[in-house]
Structures are given as C-alpha cells and as structure tokens.
C-alpha cells in the first residue's frame, strides 16, 4: 500500500515539533518514545503498520484547535484516532505525521431527557452512551459489534452501523450535532439539539468523512426508549438461496425486524464452537431475526415470520422464550469475528453491500474464488440491508498468503460493485479500499469529492493517503477549463 512520501524536512524537525506540541498540551500529552509509539502503529486492520512521528493527546477543544493551527502553519500531517478499531485502516499513522488521539475526551457532558438527546465527548465509547442512559430505560441505537471499545468519534467518522441499523438507522441517522475543529483551528458547530441542521447539511458529510474534514470534539446523539420486549428467532435453511428468499419475503410482507442477520455454514460452526449458542449445525444458512416492540406486536410478528420462513423452506425454527436466551442467540453472531479468529491464524474481514436478490449468485462466485485462491471464507451478513461480511481465512506466516487474501478480498468487492452494490457498507474506505474507488466512481466523481475536501482542508494535511486513490492539489482541482462560445446545445428545447 503506497502512502504519501514522508516529508524529510518535517522529519528533521521532529524534536522541535515535539517541544512545540508540549507547549500546547503540557504534561504527558505528547508521546515521542519509540516503544510507546508502537502502541499506535496500527488499527483494526492489523496487516498495515506504521509508527507515527509523534502522538499528541489533547484534553480540551482549545488544545485541539491550537495543535491543528500549529500543524497547518508548519505543514505537518495529522491522523485523528479514537479507539483504533477501524477495519479499513482509517487510523493508520503516517511516518511524518502526528496521531491526534482523542481518548482523553471521555466525558458524557449532558443528558437531556426531555429533548431525547445526549451530549458527549468523542472519546466516549459507543456502549458508554447506552450505559449512561440505561438507568431510565434509554439506549443509543447504532450498535457495532465493537461497541465496548470503539468511540463515538470513530463512529461519526466511519458512519458505523450495527445489527439494529435496518430498523433504527446508521450513525448518520442518530447524530443531531457535532462540534468540529477545522485544520486551520477554526471551531464550528453543526446542528445541535434541534432536528435539522440549518444551511448546508455539513453535519451530513462530516459523518462518514473518515477523519478527512475536521476533528470532532463533541457529539450530540439521539437516544431512544428501549422497546418493551424483544424476541429473537433462529431460522435454519438447507441453502443460502432459500435463506435469502426468506429475507426478501419478510420485507415484502411489510415487516422491518429490529435485526435480521445471516450466517453461512462455516460461520455457524465457528460461532457455535466458540460460544455454544445452540445453533443448528446441519443447515447451510442461519437467520437470526429479532422482533422488538410492544408484547402483542412482537408475538403477532413472530408468528407471521415463522409462517413465512416455513413457506420458504426453513428446516429449523426456534424462538427465544426469555431475555437470557435472546442474548445467547446474539452472542454467537456478535462473536463471529473472534470465533473465526479461533479457526484460522488470521482472517480478513470484508464489507461490501449488494442488492440482496443477487446473494445466491454472489455466494456461488465467492465459493469459486475461494477454490481458485485456495483460501477458505466464512460469511456473516447483515441480511436485511444486503451488507456482506465475508471473512477470508489465511495465515500471515505463510509467504504470499496475505497478498492472496487481499487479492481475493478485492475480487469480492469488485463483484459487489458489478452486481449493483458498493465497496463498503459500514467499515469505511480508509487505506484498504482506497485503490478500488475507481471501480465505483469515475474521475469526475472523485474530483468532486476531493473539491469538497479542499473546502475544509486546502493543504490536504488531515488524514492524507486515505479514501482517495490519487491526490490532486486543490489549486489544480479548482481550475476550470472553459471555452467561451464553444459549447452550444442545438437540440435543447427552449421556450
């Protein structure tokens, strides 16, 4: 993976830069010892490692602003970091850049029950928000499997999802406002406790911007009252095709479950061996369908979903009868990644989205590729919204296997785009899918995205080397080649 060439003049000034940053963030706010820097050398995409030049850990907005201002003035690259669980290398450091760690921003600032929102600092964990509001029966809806560790700042940057986002939306649908520090140190507030941000919806583009537009220093999220009841069903199918059909039939019947997940045989077996969730082992596809809401509604919908599943060829059906059992059903799915980690030295997690009806074809072609690359693959799938997580099993200690796994992964993502889907449903582009952007977007599309980046960070100092395969200078992108009088439109209807 090619990263921007390190700037030797910046590297030569390392000691001076560390001293300047210590002026801004005193005490233990600046890390420059090699052994301590190593803790930051990668994120959840562990195949890539690069110790940063320095790590800076500010604890106030004023410090963030001053650090960015200083870095801009001195041409120093900045990589924001939350908990470092990104699976796309979004928080991968740069040799000549500082990592701006947001871990010290770990306070819940305000819970406003009447306006149904919580104002938190970006380093608060995803689960930390739900925990903070649980006493009154509330929760924060998006629930990535990494929710114990990942931060809301990282969630905002990646627009993270979870198993409940089919019904309750992704991060972007649950964030009301942010405070954002721009690369020039300016502090802007986007949105707030009201339900739509005024002016341009900059909040909408900052969510999912992968740390390229600004540093988030405060987040206002929507909180929801927990449903009265939730029950989960396990539905087993003889083929992935029948399982996929059942998902379509449930939605066509007008039912949007709280969660609808699918696992294939290898994933089922790995999860069952790991957490003993009671999954059937003689099925090719397992659906976990959760219905939540008032008791009467849930009972009604459970019956309807079971009838649909039977009609679509389910050979196994079991419904949770109490909360413990429901949690157990989910435990297998939520631990699917580490479970697969147990059956293989390494795994590589993919994240494409496809139109769901193309599932059988995509799985068949993936099986072919698996043979061709000589690497096993296990599939977990946010079935309701078509978001696939193929887990490619490999052994990094075998020469060439990582490269094979990456090539296999890239082929899967190309296939997702080919059938009308996208490269990433929730993990982000980062460095991982950067060079595949051209399969989905042409040069015009990518240039327009980079022009937007220029409006926020004209020198391209914030998280460079991520998302965009080719970096253009803003001046070059802004230039317009117009030919006065040369463009005409003889066929265009006029009045």
């Amino acid at each position, binding site marked *: 993976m090619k990263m921007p060439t390190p700037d030797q003049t910046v590297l030569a000034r390392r000691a001076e830069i560390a001293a300047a940053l210590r002026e801004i963030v005193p005490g233990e706010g600046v890390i420059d010892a090699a052994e301590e820097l190593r803790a930051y050398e990668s994120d959840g995409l562990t195949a890539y490692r690069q110790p940063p030049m320095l790590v800076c850990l500010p604890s106030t907005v004023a410090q963030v602003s001053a650090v960015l201002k200083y870095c801009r003035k001195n041409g120093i690259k900045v990589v924001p970091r939350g908990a470092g669980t990104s699976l796309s290398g979004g928080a991968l450091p740069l040799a000549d850049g500082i990592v701006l760690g947001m871990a010290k921003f770990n306070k819940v600032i305000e819970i406003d*029950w009447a*306006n*149904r929102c919580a104002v938190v600092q970006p380093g608060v964990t995803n689960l930390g928000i739900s925990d903070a509001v649980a006493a009154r029966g509330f929760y924060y809806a998006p629930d990535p499997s990494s929710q114990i560790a990942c931060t809301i700042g990282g969630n905002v940057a*990646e*627009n993270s999802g979870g198993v409940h*986002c089919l019904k309750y*939306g992704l991060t972007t649908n649950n964030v009301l406002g942010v405070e954002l520090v*721009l690369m020039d140190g*300016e502090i802007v*507030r986007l949105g*707030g*406790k*009201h339900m*739509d941000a*005024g*002016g*341009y*919806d*900059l*909040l*909408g*583009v900052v969510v*999912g*911007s992968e740390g390229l537009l600004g540093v988030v220093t405060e987040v206002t999220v929507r909180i929801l009252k927990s449903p009265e009841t939730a029950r989960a069903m396990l539905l087993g199918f003889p083929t992935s095709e029948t399982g996929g059909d059942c998902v379509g039939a449930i939605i066509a019947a*007008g*039912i949007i479950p709280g969660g609808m997940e699918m696992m294939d045989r290898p994933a089922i077996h790995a999860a069952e061996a790991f957490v003993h969730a009671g999954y059937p082992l003689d099925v090719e596809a397992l659906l976990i369908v959760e219905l939540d*809401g*008032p*008791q*009467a*509604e849930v009972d009604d919908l459970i019956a309807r979903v079971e009838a649909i599943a039977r009609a679509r060829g389910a050979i196994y059906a079991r419904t949770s009868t109490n909360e413990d059992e429901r949690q157990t059903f989910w435990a297998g799915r939520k631990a699917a990644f580490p479970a697969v980690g147990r059956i293989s030295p390494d795994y590589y997690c993919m994240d494409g*989205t*496809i*139109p769901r*009806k193309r599932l059988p074809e995509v799985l068949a072609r993936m099986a072919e590729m698996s043979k061709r690359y000589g690497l096993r693959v296990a599939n977990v799938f946010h079935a309701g919204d*078509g978001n696939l997580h193929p887990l490619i099993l490999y052994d990094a200690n075998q020469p060439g296997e990582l490269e094979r796994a990456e090539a296999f992964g890239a082929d899967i993502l190309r296939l997702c785009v080919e059938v009308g*889907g*996208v*490269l*990433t*449903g*929730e993990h982000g582009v980062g460095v991982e899918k950067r060079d595949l*952007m051209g399969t*989905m*977007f042409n040069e*015009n*599309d990518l240039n*327009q995205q980079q022009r*937007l980046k*220029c*409006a*926020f960070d004209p020198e391209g100092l914030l998280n460079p080397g991520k998302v965009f395969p080719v970096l253009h200078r803003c001046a070059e992108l802004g230039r*317009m080649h117009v*030919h006065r*009088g040369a*463009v*005409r*439109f003889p066929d265009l*209807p006029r*009045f």
Partner: protein
Amino acid sequence: MSTTLRPETPAQLREAVAWAAAEDVQLELRGRGTKRGFGRPMQTEHVLDLSALAGIDAYEPEELVLTCAAGTPIAEIETLLAGKRQLLGFEPPDLGPLYGGADGGTIGGVLAANLAGPRRVKLGAARDHFLGFSGVSGRGEAFKAGGRVVKNVTGYDLAKLVAGSFGTLAAVDMVTVKVLPAPDKTRTVLVFDLDDAAAIAVLVDALNSPYEVSGAAYLPTAAAGRSGVEYVRKAGVSVAAVRVEGTAVSVAGRCAALRTLFAGRGPVEELHSMNSAKLWREIRDVAVFLPDREKAIWRVSAPPCEGPRVARATGGDWFCDWGGGLVWLATAVAGDGGAAAIRGALAAVGGHATLVRAADPLRAAVPVFEPQAPALAALSKRVKESFDPRRILNPGRMYAGV
C-alpha cells in the same frame, strides 16, 4: 430577456449547464415551481426547467429502493409505491397550497428543500432516505455520489449535502431513495385543552415512551379551530395529537397504553383511519392552520421542548409538529416580519428560523435562512465554490454570495 431551457436527457442537462458555466450565465433551477417562493428572491437571466427529466428508472420493493429521475412528480411515486403497500418514510409535505398552488411538486424539489413531514420524529427527514444521485455541478461536469443500495459508506455522503441545498450545488437528474413498508393501521390519540407546557409534557412523555410514536403535534386553540377534522375543529380548545402506526393489534395496544399515560391530563379522544389520515395531512402540509394569505410564514427548528416558547416571541398564529421541534408561525409583514424577535428567542436555545413565505421585498430585506457564525458562513461559501465556483446555480437563493 429570460429564456427557459428544458433539457430532456442528462446529456442535454450537462450541455446546458456547461454552456452557462462557460458564458457566466446564471440559472434558476426549477422542478414544477411549487416552491419558487421558498428562498431569497433571485434575478437570474435564465430558467433551467428540470421537469422533463422525469420517470421511474427502477423500483425494487424487496430491496427497499427506488431510482427515478429528479423531475418525477411525488404524486406519481406515491401511487407506484402504494401499489406495493410501500411509502416514502419521510412523509414529504406538499407545500404547494402554502404558496397558493395545488401541485405536489417533484422528488427533486422535496429533496432539494429537505422537507419532512410528521414522521420525522420516528424515521428521519428526506436526507435520511436519500441514498444517491447523479447530476451536473456548476462546473458543467456530470458526476454521481452515493449508491443504489440502502447501506453504503463509500466516499463522502454528498446526498446529504445536496439535500437541503436548494439547487445551489448541483442540477440533479437522477435520485435513489429508500422506501419502506406502509403501516397496516394508523390511529391518533388527542388530548384536549392543555396549555403550552402541559402539551409539551404530553408530547415528551409520548416520544419518550416505548410506543414508537410516529407523529407528535400541538395545535393551539386558534389553529385547532381551522382543522377540517370535526373532532379537532369543534373542540374550541387546544389539541395535542399523538400518532401510532403499525399492525392492527399493535396499534390498538399502543393507543390504549398512551391513553393510560395521558390519564388526568385532559379529555382524550381517538381518531381512526380517515380522520387520522386527514389530520396528519393537514399538519404535514401546513397551509390549513395558517390561512391568512397576507401573513409572513416562518419555519422554526428548535430543541423540541423550546418550540412553543420561541413561537410565543412574536404573538403570531402558530402550531408545532415534531414534538415541538418544528414550529410553523404566521407573523405580520410590517417591519422585519418578526425576524429579530424569533431569532432573538432562538439564540438562547439553539436552532434556526427560515422565512418560508413572504413577498419579495421582505425576503430581500430579511435573511431568509438563519444567519451563520462567521467561521461556518465562510466554510459554507467554500463548499458552494467547490461545486459551483462561478455561482451560476440558484445564486443567492440561500445566502448572499452563495
């Protein structure tokens, strides 16, 4: 003299904008023109009429997505979706009547204004259902963003930015939106004769309940008196309304639970099917409750509990939706039309006010959209320039110089 350009294909659209960009010709973008009065008055040389770019490209009910040309009428989309018992979850308002027209406008227009009806409290605004688009930037370049599937984080979410940009960033030709199953049943619980504080308390309790409320509005006495729904009109007092939607058993159960929750607050009534649908359509489309054609109309977005307090700042007629977070307010046109009073009240609590309807002179004299802090205003301007450096697309419709 002003000419209207009416491209019939994306290629013609690109040609038209490229020509305008080359010649520095400013364009007013128009769908069916139902919301022409929304925004700052413009003096552009030409009109770019997008209504010929219409028609459904792909509708996949089981994938929950619809792709269509931006000029497709909302009415056509709603009819198509109804055939598969689906709908647009954000409940697009028809502001036509507010401006004296009757037509429902186009999907492109609704997205450009990021409008959302009562269901906003549960399912989000237009921007939350806008998955991808293609269009032409003010540079005359065709580009696309987003995708045609419901879950996607590939690249910046430009659909969100284009939603609510009032045609100032790009001329959009094709859009993909998320669609959702239509609920089997709808019911509304009414609570009568509450003052502002008591009404907000009812709405807060409803929205903070686990009953998945999909509408929460409050009609002060004057507004309630104008409703076409007899129960509401003849009450002679204020009315708080809470809607639930879903399967028959669920709706009945949740209504009963809400009535228990509201016990002792005021007299309670339930609206079923036709009446319920009619009331929420009135709330969604606004016009019925603010009938005086001479008045200026404001749309205020505030923290929900603060809505009524901001509304009372001018003494004008008003009602609120979104649990109090969306206030529609009619003010006298004299002076600044209430701008200073409304924005002064908002400054203390956060939010923004938009002068949605007024004669040109008032919309030229008073900032139509909430003035922004300097750093944010400068950023917005740079964003505009990144799409439309020559400011040829709806110049000045939102802010001067943008």
